[in-house]
């Protein structure tokens, strides 16, 4: 019964025979999409700015959500998630690459963040905010966010890999320290970076719960990705020793919990702004509930809350990895729509305006990240093979 009596699962390393030609396909798609973005971007820099930012931020939320799951794993000394931790570490370590992919935004920054083109000397409203909202400080903060999250993710993965070699518990202790540091500092930084990048799209608008809203979506998005990923790996015959049916219940419960968390934060933000009815605050929802944007908002309410809430409420289906994969895929699509309705209405206030650039940007950033992720997948064992809590994780009972 108890975990100590069972032998440790034998470490597995990913064999690229499962990927085959798809890796090349991924690289080619990424390359074509990157070139296409360049061409389309030169033609219509404004659309490029918003589409690229939309895609970049979507993947940023997933990477930062994965980092959150690693941090929370170490901070609370969790056992159940040891089996999936290596993949979360791999995903969060894509942050430096994402930073690189977001560099083109430097050239179109003033299209995206319109306040950058304004002068505080002539604009009184901006002058009031200029102590915080000035170009230099903005870029210093941006560099700080990427450094903080990037170094944090790197350290957590490096210690974890070191433990694979010598099995020393000291690496777990070190990671715990990194996690303790990142919980408060990362929480504040994520709040400010969502304010800077996302709220800054309309610099006159503000919402005090914004950071939490972005956080809720990020954690949910990362959870969906890890569910889909562990399903894919289990289908390829891996992770059988560390992920059992009981882990599916854990996934299902967390998915339900964070669906509710996101819904509640989204609702509270909407309700307070709607009820107070202050023009500078309600502009966000006025824009998104007028013309065809309204349809997307209703789809979000139904698809991001009602449907998964009802589906995940019952315990029985949550035992099935296939069912969870379906719901996770659906939620990931809804998260994408959520980010879409944050960004694109600013560019097209007249209504829903799908652009080729949106898809190309998603493909360019997504395929590049996936290709590098696949490279990392085979570099190390699929789970922390000498983690002190591995046996406990493998015999986890929900």
């Amino acid at each position: 019964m108890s975990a100590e009596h069972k032998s440790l699962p034998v470490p597995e390393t990913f064999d690229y025979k499962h990927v085959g030609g798809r890796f090349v396909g991924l690289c080619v798609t990424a390359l074509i999409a990157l070139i296409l973005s360049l061409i389309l971007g030169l033609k219509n820099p404004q659309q490029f700015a918003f589409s690229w930012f939309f895609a970049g931020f979507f993947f940023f939320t997933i990477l930062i959500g994965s980092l959150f799951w690693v941090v929370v794993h170490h901070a609370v000394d969790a056992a159940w998630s040891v089996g999936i931790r290596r993949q979360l570490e791999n995903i969060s370590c894509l942050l430096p690459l994402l930073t690189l992919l977001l560099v083109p935004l430097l050239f179109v920054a003033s299209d995206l963040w319109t306040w950058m083109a304004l002068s505080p000397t002539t604009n009184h409203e901006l002058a009031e905010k200029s102590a915080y909202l000035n170009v230099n400080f903005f870029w210093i903060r941006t560099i700080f966010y990427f450094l903080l999250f990037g170094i944090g993710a790197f350290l957590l993965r490096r210690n974890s890999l070191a433990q694979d070699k010598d099995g020393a518990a000291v690496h777990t202790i070190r990671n715990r320290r990194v996690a303790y540091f990142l919980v408060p500092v990362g929480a504040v930084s994520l709040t400010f970076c969502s304010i800077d990048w996302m709220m800054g799209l309309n610099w006159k608008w503000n919402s005090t719960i914004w950071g939490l809203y972005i956080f809720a979506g990020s954690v949910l998005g990362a959870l969906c990705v890890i569910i889909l990923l562990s399903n894919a790996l289990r289908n390829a015959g891996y992770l059988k020793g560390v992920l059992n049916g009981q882990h599916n219940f854990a996934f299902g419960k967390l998915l339900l919990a964070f669906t509710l968390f996101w819904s509640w934060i989204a609702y509270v933000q909407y309700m307070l702004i709607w009820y107070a009815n202050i023009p500078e605050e309600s502009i966000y929802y006025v824009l998104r509930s007028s013309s065809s944007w309204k349809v997307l908002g209703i789809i979000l309410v139904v698809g991001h809350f009602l449907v998964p809430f009802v589906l995940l409420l019952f315990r029985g289906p949550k035992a099935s990895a296939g069912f969870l994969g379906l719901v996770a895929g659906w939620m990931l699509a809804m998260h994408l729509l959520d980010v879409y309705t944050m960004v694109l209405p600013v560019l097209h206030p007249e209504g829903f305006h799908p652009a080729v650039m949106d898809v190309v940007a998603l493909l360019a950033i997504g395929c590049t990240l996936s290709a590098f992720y696949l490279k990392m997948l085979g570099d190390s064992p699929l789970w922390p093979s000498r983690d002190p809590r591995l046996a406990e994780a493998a015999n986890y009972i929900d």
Partner: protein
Amino acid sequence: MVRLLTLIILWRRRTKMSQHHSHSQGFHGHHLPVAGSKEEPLYAIGARFETPEALVHAVDHLRDQGVSLYECFTPYPVHGLAESMKLPKSILSLLVLGGGISAVLIALSMELIPSCIIYPLVVDGKPLNLSALPQYIPIVAALTIMIGAVTAVVGMILLGGMPRWNNPMFAWDLFAKDASRGFFLAVEARDRKFSTSALTELLHELGAGDITAIHQEASEGK
């Protein structure tokens, strides 16, 4: 609901215990220690296991022998015990769902009937129809959580057979005083397969200690 005895909420009649304590020890019939009053009918054979694994193992064996009327008493929920006992899924989750749905209906009717039908009053320029739904949701959510939680707690207690005045198990001194120091099993005398000698032997083989014949306590009048 696993009827693991929620030891904290058990109601005990201590006075009764002390009255019959004097003649509750000793050997009887099959050389088993006896708890309770010998004049009263036999209630169950009780046994104590040192580890949760031993208890789960014993339950597996008892089920194989066709024993069905038995109860486990553990100081904390033991993983795998409910599966070994083959307990059916509890209806508690359905009760909570029912509680939640009725809470939504109660909250909405409490809000919408007065403020939209009986005494329509425009406050802060907000509409009186369902397009103002956001302002009604906090009450709905809070009441759903409250009634759901109360249903869960009260339902757990009621489905667990609580409250009750006494449990014949309390006639067994070891259990009554030390219930948290072991993993207890009681096979009731009403069981079709009940046989004191066979059960004693089987429980002994399964590694049980303190096997005891538990009689009910003498009632007040005697």
